[in-house]
């Protein structure tokens, strides 16, 4: 369960569908590059680590994972967790890491370009 402080730190911005569609695979493979996770854990990590910005309907994560699996970016394995329950753990593959590198590069280039354009200008700044 989220603590009160966690909920307070959540972003009040709601990402538009297209942004979400582009960002979610990148975020998922980024998390799975760090360590392997099972579905519920991944959903929680996405919500918590993104400050709520990448919170999605929990059911959304499974089609996303299957899609990444079909592309060979992630792989999955059923294993018994320390609590004895069997779970399906996902982790990034070598191909997934390589894809992630390319995505990061594009992301950095995009952010730099948007910054140069002044997209990041703060609310109060005038022309």
């Amino acid at each position: 369960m989220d603590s009160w402080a966690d909920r307070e730190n959540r972003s009040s911005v709601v990402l538009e569908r297209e942004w979400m569609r582009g960002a979610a695979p990148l975020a998922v493979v980024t998390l799975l590059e760090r360590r392997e996770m099972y579905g519920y854990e991944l959903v929680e990590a996405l919500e918590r680590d993104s400050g709520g910005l990448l919170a999605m309907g929990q059911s959304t994560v499974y089609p996303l994972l299957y899609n990444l699996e079909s592309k060979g970016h992630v792989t999955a394995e059923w294993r018994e967790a320390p609590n004895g329950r069997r779970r399906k753990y996902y982790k990034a593959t070598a191909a997934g890491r390589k894809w992630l590198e390319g995505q990061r590069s594009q992301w950095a280039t995009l952010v730099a370009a948007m910054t140069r354009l002044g997209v990041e200008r703060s609310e109060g700044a005038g022309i």
Partner: protein
Amino acid sequence: MSGRRGLSKEIEAVIQEVLDSAHLDLIDGRDEVARELRAHFEDGLAVGTSPEEMIERFGDPIAAGRRIAKTRPRAAAHNRGNQGKWWMSPDEWKQELTRAARRLRRAPGFTAIVVLTLALGVGVNTAIFTVLNAVLLQELPYGEPDRLVRMYEKLETWSEDSQFLRAPAIAEYRTWVDVFENVAAFYSYREVGADLTDGDVPQRVSVLRVSSGYFETLGRPPLMGRRYCVRATAPRPWARPSADCETGWSSFRSPQR
């Protein structure tokens, strides 16, 4: 109220709804998806989330099923190693084709559109190829089609689309033996009907009025009967044969009775 593995009936119903919307086969990993979704709910319940909140946070099960329908079979094919693979064993081919047929049966509208599109595409292509084959690829059914030419006169007083050759001109061209091996003329390109009454039973036949030398010029023998002789028509190429020359009526009979 609890179902299998301690999950509530409501949660089991959500999982079932996802699976029903996903239309997965065993080969697509239907059972595995079911196990994974159950594990998901169990994990949520284990950290103290209420079943109601889990269901709410899970989202629309039908939409989830539809998204899983698009992605899970691809993942299963990838894991089987059959994705984009053409060197599958006969058993693997059979398995994939059976699965494809089953999925098509489940989507009759889509299948109908695909079949109609294919039928239309194949039909149109066949029709186009038939015309191209007959007009461009196949040789004309004449002896030496590359040596055949069509001639017509153009006089200033005639309209632009007139394509005629006067009888005296034909007779003249026939004397140009260094230029033309044979010269024959049509009265018209259009066949006309006629009644043939020289046998026991009258017959309706198609007639194309042509001059003598027609079959020689085309380089093909008639299917039936005899050819016109030149003497029969000169100098009017389409005149009826005279009594001292064999007639060509039988040449124009259709082979089928």
